[in-house]
C-alpha cells in the first residue's frame, strides 16, 4: 500500500460529483427494496432473495465494481498520467495492490453496503439472509475488482469488455446456458452466500468449494497479471 497513490486514486475515482452520480446505482436498488417492502402484502422471503441476487449481486455489484475497478487505473493509462506513478522507484505490486484496495473500497461503499441495507429492508434480520448477502457482495467485490483492474491494464476498452462480460456472459448466456454459470463471478459469490443463509434461500449454480476456489484463483490471477502487465506497460503508442 502506498498512501499517496491511494489518495490520488481516491480523488480521481470518487470526486464529489462522481460520487453523486455513482450513488444513483445503489439508490435505485434501495428504492426498489423500499417499494417492494411497502407493498401491503410484502414479498415472500424467496422472492426477496431472488430480487437481491439478480438486482443486487447480479447488477449493482458488477456495475459498480466495473466503474471502480477500471476507473482506478484505466483512466490514468488512457490519458498517460500513469507515467507519474510509473516513473517512480515504487514496486509495481505496490501500485496494483493500492489501486485494488481503493477499487474494493469503492465497491464496498457503493455496492456491498447498499446491498446489505437492501437485504435488511426486504427481509429483516432473519434466517441469516442479511449476512449472507453482505458476505456474497463482499467476496464478489474482491473478485470483480481484481478482474476489472486487470482489464483496465490489459485493454484500452476495459469498460466495454467488462460490460460485455457482465451483460452478455453473466446475465444473458448465464441465464440461458446452465454450464456458463459455472464460470461467473456472480455465481461464485452467491455460492458463498448459499452456505451462510438458511437452506434453500439462496441458490447458486456452483458448490461452495468450487465457487470459493475459483473466486480466489481469479482474484489472485487478476492481480498477478495486472502487475506483470504494468511492468511492461508501453507508453509509446501515443503518436
Amino acid at each position, binding site marked *: 500500500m502506498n498512501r499517496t497513490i491511494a489518495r*490520488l486514486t481516491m480523488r480521481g475515482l470518487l470526486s464529489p460529483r462522481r460520487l453523486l452520480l455513482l450513488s444513483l446505482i445503489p439508490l435505485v436498488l434501495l428504492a426498489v427494496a423500499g417499494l417492494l417492502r411497502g407493498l401491503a402484502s410484502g414479498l415472500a422471503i424467496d422472492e426477496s432473495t431472488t430480487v437481491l441476487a439478480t438486482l443486487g449481486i447480479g447488477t449493482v455489484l458488477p456495475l459498480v465494481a466495473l466503474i471502480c475497478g477500471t476507473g482506478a487505473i484505466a483512466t490514468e493509462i488512457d490519458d*498517460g*498520467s500513469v507515467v507519474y*506513478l510509473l*516513473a517512480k*522507484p515504487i514496486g509495481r505490486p505496490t501500485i496494483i495492490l493500492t489501486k485494488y484496495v481503493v477499487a474494493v473500497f469503492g465497491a464496498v461503499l457503493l455496492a456491498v453496503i447498499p446491498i446489505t441495507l437492501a437485504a435488511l429492508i426486504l427481509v429483516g434480520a432473519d434466517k441469516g439472509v442479511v449476512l449472507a448477502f453482505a458476505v456474497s457482495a463482499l467476496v464478489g467485490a474482491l473478485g470483480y475488482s481484481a478482474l476489472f483492474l486487470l482489464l483496465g491494464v490489459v485493454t484500452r476498452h476495459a469498460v466495454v469488455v467488462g460490460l460485455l462480460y457482465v451483460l452478455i456472459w453473466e446475465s444473458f448466456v448465464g441465464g440461458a446456458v446452465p454450464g456458463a454459470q459455472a464460470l461467473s463471478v456472480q455465481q461464485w459469490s452467491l455460492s458463498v452466500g448459499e452456505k451462510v443463509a438458511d437452506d434453500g434461500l439462496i441458490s447458486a449454480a456452483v458448490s461452495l468449494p468450487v465457487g470459493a476456489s475459483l473466486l480466489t484463483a481469479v482474484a489472485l490471477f487478476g492481480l498477478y497479471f495486472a502487475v506483470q502487465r504494468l511492468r*511492461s506497460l508501453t*507508453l509509446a503508442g*501515443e*503518436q
Partner: protein
Amino acid sequence: MTTISVDRVSRWFGNVVAVNDVTMTIGPGVTGLLGPNGAGKSTLLHMMGGFLAPSTGTVTLDGAATWRNEDIYNHIGLVPEREAMYDFLTGREFVVANAELFGLPNAGFAAQTAIDTVQMEYAADRKIATYSKGMRQRVKMASALVHNPSVLLLDEPFNGMDPRQRMHLMDLLRKMGAEGRTVLFSSHILEEVEQLAHHIEVMVAGRHAASGDYRQIRRLMVDRPHRYTVRSGDNRALASALIADDSTAGIELDLRDGVLHIQAIDFVGFTRRLPQVARERGIRLYEVSPTDESLESVFTYLVGA
C-alpha cells in the same frame, strides 16, 4: 555524474522500424536530440526512461538496464510530452504527491524548492485544470526536479511555450547542465537545440544521423548544396551572369514556368551575390525561394552525408 548508454539499439513496432541500430552515449551537460517528427526521438527517449523495451541492443544508465528497473527513477527526472496530469490537483499538491512518491523524507520542503525553481509559486495553489500549456510544462518540470535527479529527460519541452517561458526554461536547463546533470531534451527545431545544447545528436528516420557540438552540426547543415527557385525580369540574362559566379554549380532555365532552378554550393556567397548580380545587370527579382529548406530535406541531406 551519470551516463546514459545506448548500444546498438533498434526498436520496431510490427514491421515499422522506429529506431534503427542507434549507438550513442549521453553524458553530463545539456544534449539536444534533434530530428523531424517521426524520427524516433520519442521512442528513443521512452527506452532511456524505461518505458519501452529495445527490440535489440541495450539501454543502460550507469551500467544498469533501464527496462523493468524501477530503481533508475531514483536518478531520473522525466518530463513527458503529453499534457495529461492529475488535473483535479493544484500545482502544489501535484508536486508534493510526486515528492512523496519518490519517497522523500520532507516532501513539502522539496516541493516548495522545486516550485520556486520553476517560478510557479504565484499559481501553485490553483488547480492544474486551469493552467496554460506553459504553466503545465513548468509544473511537470518541478515534479521531475523534486528529487534532485542526476538525469533529466525531456520530450519536446518547448512545445507550446511562449518566448518568455521558453527563455526561462532554457536558462533553467542550462543551469542544470552546468551543475553537472545529464540533461537530454528532444526537439525538431534546430534553433532551439542550437541555443541550448552543448552537444547535439541528430536522428532522421530512425537512424542516428549525426553527432557533435552545434558548430559541427550547423556546418553540416549550412555547407550542403542549396536549391533555389528564382523568378526575375530577365531569367536568361540572370542565368548567364550567375553561372559565371563561383557560388553556383548549375542553373536550369525553366521556360514553361518562367523560373530559374539554381543549385548553389556556397550558401553565404550565393545569398550575397544574387542581389548584387541582379542590380549590376538591372534585372528585377520577383521571387527568390529556397526549394528544399524544409527540415526534412535538411535532415535527409545529413543522413546521406
